[in-house]
C-alpha cells in the first residue's frame, strides 16, 4: 500500500533566505517589518527590500521620530545592519534611545485565559474576534515598550554605521554636496559587503539586510544657500532609489513636507516607492478623534514588480500611541446620538427648547402612549 506522506518540498533553487524578512503574499517580494505590526498590515506585509519608504513628518516631529525608532529597533531585533545619516543631531542620540522589545509571552497567556472563560458560548471560542485594529498576524513583527530603552549591548551586536553631517563635512565640499557626500558614503558601505546582491552567490558571506534611515531629511539643515533645494533633493532621491534597487537595503526617509509647496511635494512623492503622512492632533477638540493621537494618510503604496499594488480595506486611518503598542485603526463613524438629529414631521421650534436624543424622549404632537 502506498503510504501518502506529506513531505515538504524543498525550496526552489535560488530562493534567498534572510532572517527578519518574509515573502509577500501579494507579489512575492521580500519584505521587512517596520517595527509596528499595524503599519505592516496597512502596507501589505511590510516594506519591500530595495525600496524607499517616505514618511512625511507631522508638524512637531513627535511621531515621526518615534516611527524611526521603531524601525531601527526592529532592525536590532532581527539582526539587520543599521545605517543612520543625520544632519540634525548626532545619530548616536537616536541609537541610544531605541525602545525595548516587550516579551510576547505575557500577551499570549492572557489570551488563553479568555478562551477558557467561555462557558456558555463555547461554540464561538474558536472564531476570530472582530477587531477593527490591524493586529500583526505576521510572526516577524515585534512590539516595543517606549518607556524603557533597549540595552546598549543588543544595539552594539548589530552592524552600525552612522554619519553625522556637521559643518566640517558640508562646508568643506560646498553646501550642495551634503547630498553627494551622503550618497558616496552609503555606496562605500554597501560595496563588497553582505548587503550587495551579487550575480553569483559566493556563499562566503551570509546575506543580510541593511536598514538605511535618514531622519529629518530635507529639513532646513540639509538645504544649502541657493533656493533650488528641491532639485538637489529630487536628484538625491533618484540616486538613492537606484542604489536601493541593487542592494539588500530598505530605506526610511522622513521629510517635513509641510515646509514645501504642493508641487515640490508631488515631485518628492513621485520618486519614492511608499509614502505615508502623519498628521498629529494638538489640542484637538473634535469628539470623533478623542481616542486617537493623529491621522495616517497613505499617499503611495509600493508597486515594484506588479501592475497593481496592494490596497488596504480603507484609507481612513488613525493612529494611537500606547506605551507598548502603536495602533493604527480604521476610522468609523460613531453612532449618531447628537441632539440635533432631526426627524420628519417635527416642529422647528421644538428643537431649540427640548434637546432630545434621536432614540427617545421626543415630544411629538401626537402623544404616543405605551
Amino acid at each position, binding site marked *: 500500500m502506498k503510504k501518502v506522506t506529506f513531505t515538504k518540498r524543498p525550496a526552489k533553487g535560488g530562493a534567498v533566505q534572510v532572517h527578519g524578512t518574509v515573502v509577500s503574499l501579494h507579489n512575492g517580494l521580500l519584505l521587512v517589518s517596520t517595527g509596528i505590526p499595524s503599519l505592516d498590515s496597512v502596507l501589505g506585509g511590510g516594506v519591500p527590500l530595495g525600496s524607499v519608504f517616505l514618511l512625511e513628518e507631522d508638524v512637531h516631529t513627535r511621531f515621526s521620530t518615534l516611527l524611526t525608532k521603531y524601525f531601527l529597533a526592529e532592525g536590532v531585533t532581527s539582526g539587520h545592519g543599521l545605517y543612520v545619516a543625520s544632519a540634525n543631531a548626532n545619530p548616536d542620540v537616536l541609537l541610544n534611545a531605541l525602545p525595548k522589545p516587550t516579551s510576547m509571552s505575557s500577551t499570549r497567556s492572557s489570551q488563553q485565559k479568555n478562551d477558557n472563560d467561555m462557558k456558555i458560548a463555547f461554540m464561538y471560542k474558536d472564531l476570530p474576534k472582530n477587531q477593527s485594529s490591524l493586529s500583526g498576524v505576521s510572526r516577524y513583527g515585534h512590539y516595543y515598550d*517606549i518607556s524603557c530603552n533597549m540595552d546598549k549591548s543588543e544595539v552594539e551586536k548589530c552592524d552600525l554605521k552612522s554619519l553625522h553631517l556637521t559643518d566640517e563635512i558640508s562646508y568643506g565640499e560646498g553646501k550642495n554636496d551634503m547630498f553627494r557626500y551622503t550618497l558616496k558614503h552609503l555606496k562605500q558601505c554597501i560595496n563588497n559587503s553582505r548587503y550587495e546582491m551579487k550575480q553569483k552567490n559566493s556563499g562566503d558571506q551570509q546575506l543580510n539586510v541593511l536598514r538605511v534611515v535618514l531622519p529629518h531629511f530635507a529639513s*532646513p*539643515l540639509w538645504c*544649502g*544657500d541657493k533656493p533650488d*533645494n528641491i532639485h538637489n533633493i529630487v536628484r538625491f532621491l533618484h540616486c538613492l532609489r537606484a542604489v536601493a534597487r541593487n542592494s539588500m537595503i530598505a530605506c526610511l526617509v522622513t521629510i*517635513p513636507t509641510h515646509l514645501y509647496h504642493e508641487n515640490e511635494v508631488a515631485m518628492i512623492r513621485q520618486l519614492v516607492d511608499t509614502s505615508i503622512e502623519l498628521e498629529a492632533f494638538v*489640542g484637538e477638540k473634535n469628539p470623533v478623534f478623542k481616542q486617537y493621537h493623529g491621522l495616517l494618510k497613505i499617499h503611495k503604496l509600493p508597486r515594484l514588480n506588479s501592475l497593481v499594488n496592494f490596497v488596504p480595506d480603507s484609507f481612513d486611518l488613525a493612529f494611537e500611541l500606547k*506605551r507598548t503598542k502603536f495602533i493604527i485603526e480604521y476610522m468609523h463613524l460613531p453612532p449618531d446620538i447628537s441632539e440635533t438629529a432631526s426627524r420628519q414631521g417635527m416642529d422647528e421650534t421644538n428643537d431649540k427648547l427640548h434637546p432630545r436624543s434621536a432614540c427617545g424622549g421626543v415630544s411629538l404632537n401626537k402623544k404616543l402612549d405605551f
Partner: protein
Amino acid sequence: MLEKLLSGEETSRLVLICDDQFTNGSTLLRAFARSLIKRGCQLHLFCFEQHPTNFVNHLNLHNDSNVHVHDFYSDPIGWNDGDGCLLGSRLFDINSKVNQEQAGGSNTAVVIDSLSITLQTCESTSVCQQLHKLSHNQRVIQTVMLHHTHLHVDDVTKRLSHISDSVLKLNLTSSLPKITFSKKSVHDGTICVTVHRKLNGKVFLSEEKVEILSDSSVEACPWQQDPLSAQTGGISLNEEPDVTSEANLTFNLNLSVREKKERSKLVMPYIKASEEEKVEIHRSTGGGGKIFYEPDDVDDFDDEDPDEDLEF
C-alpha cells in the same frame, strides 16, 4: 505654560516670539531677558532694531555686568568700522561671539531683538542652520528670538517654527477687522498662543491672556475664546424670551427674594457630615509632600496616557 517657560520650569532651548503689525512682541522679549538675568545667566544681547541702551534701560536692572551687548543697530553696514560687510553675515559669527566672551562656566543665554533684517539679507535656511547650531551649543541654555511675521512669507515662519522648541504667537483678543487704528476697543488685549515641544517629543498647546507690567513681569491667565463674541464682535445677543409664559398660571413658580434668602440659609443634613470629613482630612495630611514612586517590573501599568503627564 507661558509662566513656566519664563521661570525656566520648562526647558526650551530655542524660543521664538512671533508678532505682527497689531501686536508688540518686544515687551515679552524683555520679560524673557529679565527673567534669564534673574536666573543668573550671562546674557548676550543682539540688537538690530532698538538702541541697546534703550533695551537695557527698560530691563530695570541694578547691575549691568551680566549683559553683553552686540550692537548691530548703530552701524548696520559697518561704514564706520570699515569692514563694510553685509549685515546679515555678521550674525553668522554668533556662535564664535558667544564662545569667545565665555569666561567662567556660568550659563549663557542669547536674546536676539529681531531676526527680520538678517532674514531679509540671507537665505532663511542658512539662518535656521546657524540658530540650530546655537541651540545645540552646550553652554547656551536658552535662545530667545523675536520674529515679525508680517514682514516675511509664511515659509520663513514655518521653517523657524520647525527648528524652535517653543513658538509663542501673539494675537489680539478681538478678531474684528481693524478699520481704524485710533479707536481702541474695550475688549482688546493680547493673547499668547504657545506651542511648546518638550524634550521627549510631547507637544503642548495653550492660549493665555497676557499682561506685561511696567517692571517687565508677566501675568498670564488661561483664556478661551467666547464663541458668541467671536462671531458677532463682542455684541452680546439678547436672550430669547421664555416661550412658556407663566402669566396664565394660577400659582407662582418662582421664589421671591425673601424666600430665596431663607432657602440659602437652610443647612442640609449631608453638608454637616461632609464638613466634618473635610476637617478630618485636612488634619491628617499635614504639610504637602512629593511622592516618589519607583514602579516595580510587576506593576500593572496603564498603557494610555490621557492626562499627558507621563514620560513617554
